[in-house]
């Protein structure tokens, strides 16, 4: 139970820092911490084999999103 509270506290901390930070390149690592925390929280909330699939799908999807934003921010190229 403590693990879930730790993960939720880290998630809200990372979300606030990602919003406060101005530079896009330094915003993305904070958003990445938020993605880690939410993917962990999904599995801790519901103990079911399919929640592992949900966490992995969410994590890969949000990584792809960060990858696309960073590539476009760098000035085009492979997406």
């Amino acid at each position, binding site marked *: 139970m403590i693990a879930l509270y730790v993960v939720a506290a880290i998630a809200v901390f990372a979300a606030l820092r990602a919003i406060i930070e101005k530079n896009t390149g330094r915003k993305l690592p904070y958003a990445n911490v938020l993605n880690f925390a939410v993917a962990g929280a999904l599995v801790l*909330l519901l103990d079911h084999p399919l929640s592992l699939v949900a966490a992995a799908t969410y994590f890969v999807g949000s990584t792809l999103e960060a990858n*696309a934003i960073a590539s476009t921010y760098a000035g085009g190229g492979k997406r």
Partner: protein
Amino acid sequence: MITALEVTFGLIALAGAVSAALIRDSYGKLVSLGILVAGVLPFIVDRGYLDVAIAVSLIAPIATIFVLLAVRREER
């Protein structure tokens, strides 16, 4: 779900929504939309709708990529 956790994840979703409305930079807006989805997803999983959660987490990045195409065309 426990009330403290509901408040925490609801705070994340609200902060994402408010910052998406207030931030002027277009990349910052997209990051805020990602934060909004991250706050909403634990509520879907807590009710047990795991298939809905999988579908949402597949659709959200695809929507972001489509918006990025428009952002890139606007910058040129």
